[in-house]
């Protein structure tokens, strides 16, 4: 992957437009033909390099076009950058990374004043501090997104005392990472509870000395430990859920040597008090089926086969309401009550009389 200075876009390899891949299998062909490339946080940047701009004095229009995707901090032509005849190269710096990502996606290969723009990231223009901030924001974003998902998942599971403290900590955490959250308008477009914070978009964000950057440096350090404590309770849940679903899906069968011992520990770490959703659903389904088997719908007596345990309930004479549907309803309720009291004998003494009064 040698680079040569004289070629077009040849100053850096990552500026070179790669050939589109035409050998993709059908099932994974995208909507647009794309090259084979991996985008990491290193490659992405607030700085965009735009090549192929026709030299017709249209800098203003170019910047206006890009500004549709987000606020631009600065822009300038790059006169020393190798360019095709009659074209210019520009550098545009966005206020935030997400705008740059969107702009790149939308504007790459777009026509502009008769020419075809080639837009790429230019991370080499970043200062050390900008790079540092970029990495920290990425980590904060992931921590926040995963924490929200975990929180959403744990809500559906059996609640433990962990939840109360977790809620408190989450609120606290989202407050501390609020300004940092401002950068990301979530490409996933999910319902990010932190969005109200980013809507505020504190003015600090537009100033070059953003107070959150110093706060973030601490966040770089405290974030991991903070999220560590916060997530300690949730990681097992997450992993347990995954391992329970493994039975349904084919796992990656590794032909190369793989430390199987480590895999075993993750599923054995699973805490029994949490029932994964699928198991709860199955549990409810099983109960429903058991109910149906008991055949209560038509008011048939609970059984000649059932073993009678506990004191015999007083036989309440059934009132005929002189109406089929009303009788059916009454029978249904009566039978349901009987069922419930079979399961919860404690209720009998107090509630039975109350319910009976209602039914009759």
């Amino acid at each position, binding site marked *: 992957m040698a680079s040569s200075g004289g070629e077009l876009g040849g100053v850096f390899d990552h500026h070179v437009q790669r050939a589109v891949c035409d050998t993709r299998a059908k099932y994974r062909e995208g909507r647009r033909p794309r090259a084979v490339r991996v985008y990491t946080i290193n490659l992405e940047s607030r700085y965009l390099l735009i090549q192929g701009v026709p030299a017709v004095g249209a800098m203003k229009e170019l910047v206006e076009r890009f500004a549709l995707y987000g606020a631009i901090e600065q822009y300038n032509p790059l006169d020393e950058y190798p360019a095709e005849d009659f074209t210019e190269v520009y550098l545009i710096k966005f206020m935030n990374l997400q705008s740059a990502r969107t702009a790149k996606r939308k504007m790459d290969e777009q026509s502009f004043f008769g020419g075809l723009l080639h837009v790429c990231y230019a991370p080499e*223009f970043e200062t050390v501090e900008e790079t540092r901030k970029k990495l920290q924001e990425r980590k904060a974003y992931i921590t926040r997104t995963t924490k929200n998902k975990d929180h959403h998942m744990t809500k559906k599971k059996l609640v433990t005392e962990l939840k109360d403290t977790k809620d408190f900590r989450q609120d606290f955490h989202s407050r501390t990472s609020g300004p940092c959250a401002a950068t990301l308008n979530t490409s996933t477009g999910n319902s990010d509870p932190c969005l109200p914070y980013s809507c505020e978009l504190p003015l600090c964000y537009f100033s070059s000395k953003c107070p959150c950057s110093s706060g973030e440096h601490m966040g770089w350090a405290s974030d991991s430990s903070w999220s560590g404590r916060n997530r300690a309770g949730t990681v097992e849940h997450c992993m347990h859920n995954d391992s329970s679903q493994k039975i349904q899906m084919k796992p990656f069968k590794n032909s190369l040597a793989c430390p199987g011992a480590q895999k075993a520990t993750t599923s054995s770490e699973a805490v029994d008090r949490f029932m994964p959703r699928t198991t709860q659903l199955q549990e409810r389904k099983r109960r429903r089926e058991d109910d149906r088997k008991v055949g209560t719908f038509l008011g048939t007596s609970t059984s000649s086969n059932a073993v009678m345990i506990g004191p015999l309930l007083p036989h309440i004479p059934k009132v005929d309401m002189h109406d089929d549907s009303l009788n059916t309803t009454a029978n249904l309720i009566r039978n349901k009550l009987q069922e419930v009291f079979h399961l919860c004998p404690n209720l009998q003494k107090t509630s039975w009389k109350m319910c009976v009064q209602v039914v009759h």
Partner: protein
Amino acid sequence: MAQKPKVDPHVGRLGYLQALVTEFQETESQDAKEQVLANLANFAYDPSNYPYLRQLQVLDLFLDSLSEENETLVEFAIGGLCNLCPDRANKEHILQTGGIPLIINCLSSPNEETVLSAVTTIMYLSSPGSGSPPELTAMPVVQCMLRFSLSANTRLRNLAQIFLEDFCSPSQVAEARTWQAHSALGIPLPRTEAPQQ
């Protein structure tokens, strides 16, 4: 991003990822392997995919691919790891499955992107202070970063500087400097070095 926009619900997503993993395991074409690995590595950018990727053991797939002879596969694999390692669960998995030596090896790759991804991954796997696995700030690594911090490659220089400032103690850096003066360090700089801006 080289990734088509999400349209299908996550049920379709898991099936798609499963198909990718299957193709990677079964195909004999290097091109197809590269394409699939790139696809998976790009999916690793989005946190909403992490449960699926863990379920399908894609993290292990990435780690295994670091030992491939094909440099492109290594580049894409370490890129994928770099994308997903800031997540705590993923990070723990990587640490538990002995991923550190494999990632440190990538520092000596001739491929620029591989080295950059490796440096960033090491940073994300470290926690400032005493929580970090000691191998991540071992002498050879710190010395390597010292050399990178003098590189003409701005991106590499920036990353190395951040590593030395945020993840190493001043004494570690000083010690590495002293050692470096005496030893002939074997980790070369990546081949693709850009001229100074």
